């Protein structure tokens, strides 16, 4: 588990990260989401011990990073934003070097490196120079080095940035596989990526954590939902019936059809599934035929823009 407590980082007079606290639970993929310049890379450099925080503490698997730096670093593998590759080395030599650096037992290095290359799809380029590899393979080599020594915690900084769509899909699949038996913290500014990979999301904005929730919580929390509906009733009648619906906010009438139906957009508080069920029961009890009931789900992108927007306004 990774636990950050009140982490702050100043670059001279500029405060890059402010009082950041969150946890990454064991065996789950946590996404650090934020726009460019939000402080993601700074935070990951701090968590990996590359850079000390100005204040605050970090614990990796129960060990304090400041007091047990070396032991903590044994527990984690890090893929920085730019993969740390030595172009003059072959893939195999490079991974062997990283294993030695991470104090892997000498006798097991060769087997370990073979396994990592198989897992990351690098076997066919094992004897190629890193400087001659394509961007996709370089990224794979970057992830492979993070796996050397089999650390339980993986920290990946924008692992898919700059890749083509096929490579993005392959790297995401690899991260998904790794997430089954590792604690993964990865940063991204791509909402779809976080949505498709993570069980937990931390949103960073202007160096501050503004949300730390599971994906479903984030999608549902404290938000109004919209339901499109078509009911055989006059607009006024429908308005008065819907006032009895728990969480009712407003009804925007879109159209009154000739066959007596009123089409509208209903806004309710809470999640759409619960509201939809209650709405169905309410209309059934009033004997009002229902022709359309279509909950409109908010995308994570909308949620993200909303929360970062709110934060921006409050700042």
């Amino acid at each position, binding site marked *: 588990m990774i636990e950050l407590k009140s982490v702050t980082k100043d670059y001279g007079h500029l405060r890059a990260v402010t009082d950041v606290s969150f946890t990454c639970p064991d065996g789950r993929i946590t996404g650090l989401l934020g726009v460019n310049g939000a402080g993601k890379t700074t935070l990951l450099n701090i968590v*990996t011990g*590359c*850079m000390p925080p100005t204040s605050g503490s970090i614990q990796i698997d129960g060990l304090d990073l400041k007091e047990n730096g070396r032991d903590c670093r044994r527990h984690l593998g890090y893929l920085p934003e730019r993969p740390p590759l030595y172009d*003059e080395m072959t893939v195999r*030599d490079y991974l062997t070097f990283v294993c030695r650096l991470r104090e892997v037992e000498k006798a097991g290095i060769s087997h370990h490196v073979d396994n990592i290359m198989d897992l990351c799809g690098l076997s066919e380029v094992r004897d190629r120079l890193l400087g001659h590899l394509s961007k996709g393979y370089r990224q794979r080599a970057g992830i492979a080095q993070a796996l050397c020594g089999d650390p339980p915690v993986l920290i990946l900084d924008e692992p898919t940035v700059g890749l083509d769509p096929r490579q993005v899909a392959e790297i995401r699949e690899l991260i998904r596989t790794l997430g089954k038996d590792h604690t993964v913290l990865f940063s991204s500014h791509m909402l779809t990526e976080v949505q498709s990979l993570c069980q937990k999301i931390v949103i960073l904005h202007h160096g501050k954590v503004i949300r730390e929730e599971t994906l479903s919580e984030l999608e549902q929390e404290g938000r109004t939902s919209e339901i499109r509906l078509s009911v055989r009733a006059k607009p006024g009648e429908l308005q008065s019936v819907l006032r009895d619906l728990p969480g009712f906010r407003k009804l925007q009438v879109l159209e009154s059809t000739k066959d007596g139906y009123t089409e509208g957009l209903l806004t309710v508080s809470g999640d759409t599934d619960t509201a939809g069920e209650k709405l169905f029961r309410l209309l059934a009890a009033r004997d009002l035929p229902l022709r359309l009931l279509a909950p409109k789900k908010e995308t994570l992108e909308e949620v993200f823009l909303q929360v970062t927007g709110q934060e921006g306004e409050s700042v």
Partner: protein
Amino acid sequence: MTAIWRREVQSYFTTATGYVYIGIFLLISSILFQLQILTPRSSDLLTFLGQMSYLWMLLSPVLTMRLMAEEKQKQTDRLLLSSPVSLTGIVLGKYFAAVTVMLLTVLLTFVYVGIVGVYGSVYPGEILTGYLGFILQGMAFAAIDLFMSSMASGQVTAVLYAFGANFVLWMLDMLSMSVPSAVVRVLDFISLYTRNEPFLMGQLSFASIIFDLAVTVLALALTVYGMDRARRRGLK
């Protein structure tokens, strides 16, 4: 530390750096050997070693330029900083890699000793003392230039910084010819060249040994301190 040392030594020979360094070193030292030993039919290897010691000023930056600066430039320093190796371990691994290539080159110059031994007379104690001073001086220059590399953001800057530092040290030596005697005493005390003179007379000077080692340790400590300060201020 050994992993870093091993990688750096390999890197010298998988890139052109090691070959360029050894090649230029042997080329210049061969010219000096021709001029100093073969042409005048002399067996004065200590004077020859004294002249060769100026090669450290010229060639040490070649050996150290990429060690720290390239890591920053290519952002591979993240790999080292996030590994279970201390900053001291990183610096020592890199430093000893440079010293290894340096010693390998010095070893090759024993050919000159062999040639003089065949055609003239060589006094082993004297030669070993001369080489000890020569190596210690080289190690001090390597440490100073490694520190310069750690302060630079790229290889070109690292070379310029290192040449600048080496040139200033040489100028201090030159300066002692035209300053008051009180200042001369201070300059001689801190001059790596003056400190090497007892070795070139076949004297085993412990003061010079300690001075060379102290300069080396100080430069390495400053490198570690500089790295730590740089990472506290934020990685580039």
